[in-house]
């Protein structure tokens, strides 16, 4: 295949598949940084199964879809199928890069659901169904997920327009030079978005609750001699334990949970659609708002993906600055999450406040360097935007060398040996690590199940290969270990910080073309990093214009929720609250 051509005849065994499956590969896509293979729709399950069983690709990291209607790029010339479902597979045992598979789907067609091979495809396929209208054959629970049932249309399709639609791409013409701006208030807010799907009557609609047991078969006989009946209980959406606006629809018998379904989307703002109207750079401050506790690592993940796509070099000092910010962020996130796991256990506020006290110091540093405590908007393509102010490095070094180790030890003394924490946490929320992987769970949760999989080691990005740190693991995969692993990881972050602050050289902080006129070359990319909550990835497609053609966020909070139901079944209602707390979600990232 020569560079820049679209679909070449695929050298059959490029994918490393055995002869009997080589006919499943019908082409390859673009000149990528990673190989992408187009698979015949009816063979996709065979290919996935083979890759999982014989080739070690046990982790379905990313599953999404692209709408190519009106695509102007050269690479896809002559291909009719409008939609393309994308799979990114990794191996947690071997580490290393991904295999990307594509399945082309004509509009309104059906793709076999991957849930039978990778149960973790559950939420992601529902999202694709919701936002693109692709049907997945064999999915156990194919309902809308981020939008409600009365929503008309599939908003990520290119021909769908939002309520205040102005133009396809920013900058909008009405802003300059004549200032023909019209207020949204004046644009008749309800004129365009009150259509319902055909045959839909909003007045007679009732939310179906019958599906609660569908996805996890309930065992309905704890006490066979009693005439008991299970009932449906809503936890949330407005409940302090759900960490935001989030709902757990449970079927309980007595206190025991028989089935649990996460319900989400209350904060959905179609981040990805906004992202496709924005120019490449404009998306940077929007990523701050995903997991708003960790804007630094969100920035980095997005910059990483774009840099991979556009081949941008990052100067040495900027690499160090990125590591420093990302590790500070990890400490913020982990102390915060420890505090709130304890909150959910009933240790109201004390541990959380102690954790927040340290967070406060770190946020002050963020503010001094970037101008904001949480919405940092600090990174650019090719580096970071501002150098450190005077005295910053000394303060950071004081934190990393003295204050934070002391504070983490104190948290350890306060909590780890606590008998109540042990009684409530040991053995609760257990799920074998193999199941977690199959459910596409990443981050501290799988490390608390004994698997030392950390992208910083498995597929090092930035300059992580230069630092001396360990990937701690714990064996039990329960609430207690999920608490403790975060403390251990925060300690490792402190180690990295000490080294980075010691070794950081002087020099440039922004190389390459960080400006707002960036045009990424045509192609696709999946860039990911180890965010505090798990694998944060950005899947981007460029048609060579100033906007991304496709902008997809693989958010760890959202995909880790795959495990919520299976982890909670069989435990008490009170445990479900902590099980959710120990997944550590942020709704800004779940709902996007």
């Amino acid at each position: 295949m020569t560079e820049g051509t679209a679909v070449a005849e695929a050298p059959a065994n490029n994918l490393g598949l055995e002869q009997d499956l080589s006919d499943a590969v019908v082409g390859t896509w673009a000149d990528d940084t990673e190989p992408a293979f187009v698979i015949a729709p009816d063979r996709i399950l065979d290919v996935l199964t083979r890759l999982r069983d014989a080739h070690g690709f046990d982790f379905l990291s990313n599953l999404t879809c692209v709408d190519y209607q009106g695509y102007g790029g050269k690479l896809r010339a002559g291909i009719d199928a409008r939609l393309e479902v994308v799979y990114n597979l990794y191996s947690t045992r071997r580490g290393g890069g991904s295999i990307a598979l594509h399945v082309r789907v004509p509009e309104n067609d059906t793709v076999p659901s991957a849930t039978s091979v990778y149960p973790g495809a559950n939420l992601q396929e529902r999202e694709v169904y919701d936002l693109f209208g692709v049907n997945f054959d064999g999915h156990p629970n194919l309902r809308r997920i981020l939008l409600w049932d009365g929503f008309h249309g599939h908003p990520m399709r290119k021909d769908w327009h939002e309520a205040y639609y102005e133009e396809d791409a920013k900058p909008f013409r009405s802003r300059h030079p004549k200032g023909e701006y019209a207020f949204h208030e004046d644009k008749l807010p309800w004129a365009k978005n009150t259509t319902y799907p055909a045959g839909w009557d909003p007045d007679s609609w009732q939310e179906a609750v019958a599906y609660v047991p569908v996805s996890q078969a309930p065992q309905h006989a704890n006490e066979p001699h009693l005439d008991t009946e299970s009932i449906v209980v809503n936890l949330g959406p407005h409940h302090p334990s759900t960490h935001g606006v989030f709902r757990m629809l449970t079927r309980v018998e007595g206190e025991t949970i028989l089935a649990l379904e996460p319900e989400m989307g209350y904060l959905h703002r179609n981040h990805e659609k906004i992202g496709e109207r924005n120019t490449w750079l404009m998306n940077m401050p929007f990523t701050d708002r995903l997991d708003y506790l960790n804007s630094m690592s969100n920035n980095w993940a997005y910059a990483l993906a774009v840099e991979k796509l556009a081949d941008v070099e990052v100067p040495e000092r900027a690499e160090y600055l990125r590591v420093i910010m990302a590790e500070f962020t990890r400490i913020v996130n982990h102390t915060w999450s420890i505090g709130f796991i304890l909150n959910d256990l009933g240790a109201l506020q004390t541990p959380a406040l102690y954790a927040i006290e340290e967070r406060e110091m770190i946020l002050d540093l963020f503010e001094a360097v970037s101008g904001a405590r949480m919405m940092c908007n600090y990174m650019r393509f090719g580096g970071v935007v501002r150098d450190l102010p005077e005295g910053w490095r000394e303060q950071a070094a004081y934190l990393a060398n003295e204050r934070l180790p002391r504070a983490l030890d104190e948290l350890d003394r306060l909590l780890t040996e606590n008998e109540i924490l042990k009684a409530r946490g040991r053995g609760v929320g257990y799920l074998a690590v193999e199941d977690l992987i199959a459910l596409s769970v990443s981050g501290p949760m799988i490390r608390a199940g004994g698997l030392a999989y950390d992208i910083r080691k498995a597929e090092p990005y930035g300059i992580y290969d230069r630092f001396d740190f360990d990937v701690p693991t714990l064996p039990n995969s329960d609430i207690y270990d999920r608490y403790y692993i975060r403390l251990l990881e925060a300690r490792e972050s402190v180690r990295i910080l000490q080294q980075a602050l010691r070794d950081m050289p002087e020099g440039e902080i922004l190389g390459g073309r960080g400006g707002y006129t960036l045009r990424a070359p045509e192609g696709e990319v999946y860039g990911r990093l180890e965010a505090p909550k798990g694998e944060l990835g950005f899947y981007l497609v460029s048609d060579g214009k100033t906007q991304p053609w496709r902008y997809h966020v693989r958010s760890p909070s959202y995909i880790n929720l795959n495990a919520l139901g299976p982890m909670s079944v069989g435990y008490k209602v009170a445990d479900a609250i902590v099980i959710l707390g120990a997944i550590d979600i942020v709704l800004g990232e779940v709902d996007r």
Partner: protein
Amino acid sequence: MFGTGLLKGLGVTLKHALDTFEDDRESVPDRYKGSLDLGNNRRVIQQPIDQEGLLTIQYPEEKRLLPERFRYIPMLIWDSEKQEDRCTACGICAKVCPPQCIWIVRDSDENGKPVTRCSEFYIDAAVCMSCSFCVEFCPFDAIKMNHDYELAVYDRYPQLVYDMEELTVPLEYYAALWPTQYEEEQARRKEEEEQKRKQEEEKAAKAAARAAAKSAAAATDSSTAQAAPKRSAAELQALAKERAAQRQAQAADAGGDDAAAAKKARMEELKRRAQERARQRKEESGQ
């Protein structure tokens, strides 16, 4: 022994309580290190990075000390040295703004020719995401980040839609908020100006030489056409003075009814025009 973990934990909380008490006691009457009086009975508190106890800043009686780079809503710079707005209506900020909350009307002279000055400049503060891109990419140092975050009002519209008068601040205000950056910027601007002046001088000298050569060669040629200045410097200065006087008058009765009413009227007019345009568009599209 069962319960030792609990006791240890209680020890930690006790230590914390004592630390907090100690921190508090030490810093009385100064209460917190690094604090200073601000008039208005409000103090500005800097959280020392080595404090041990928990520290609460008693907002609104006390405020946090903001770092220089703190960003909130942008402001426009009135260059008090040159007595003019720095903004040239180039529109770059309106283009880079991610939520597209800036809109600008470029001014024109009496012949209808656009000039490098804006007649209207709005920022919708309810939409602004404080990203600071406008500041980063403005080529004229004309827009900067304000530190004022106490902006609460009862209505978003029109109070939170800031117009040029509300956005504009004198250079000194900016210099006080962003001292380090201001110093660097001034030095850079001086240098640039110096260079520009030199270049222009050279150019002028060359042009003069060329003209001299030309006139020597063809003395009968008609005089080179000179573009008439769109507006004389004196005129511009008068305009600027007028604007400054207006601003001062408005500042004098800041929050006074007149200014608010004037703005309201302006916004009403704007709204009317926008509605008119929306109607037109609708008719055109045959809806």
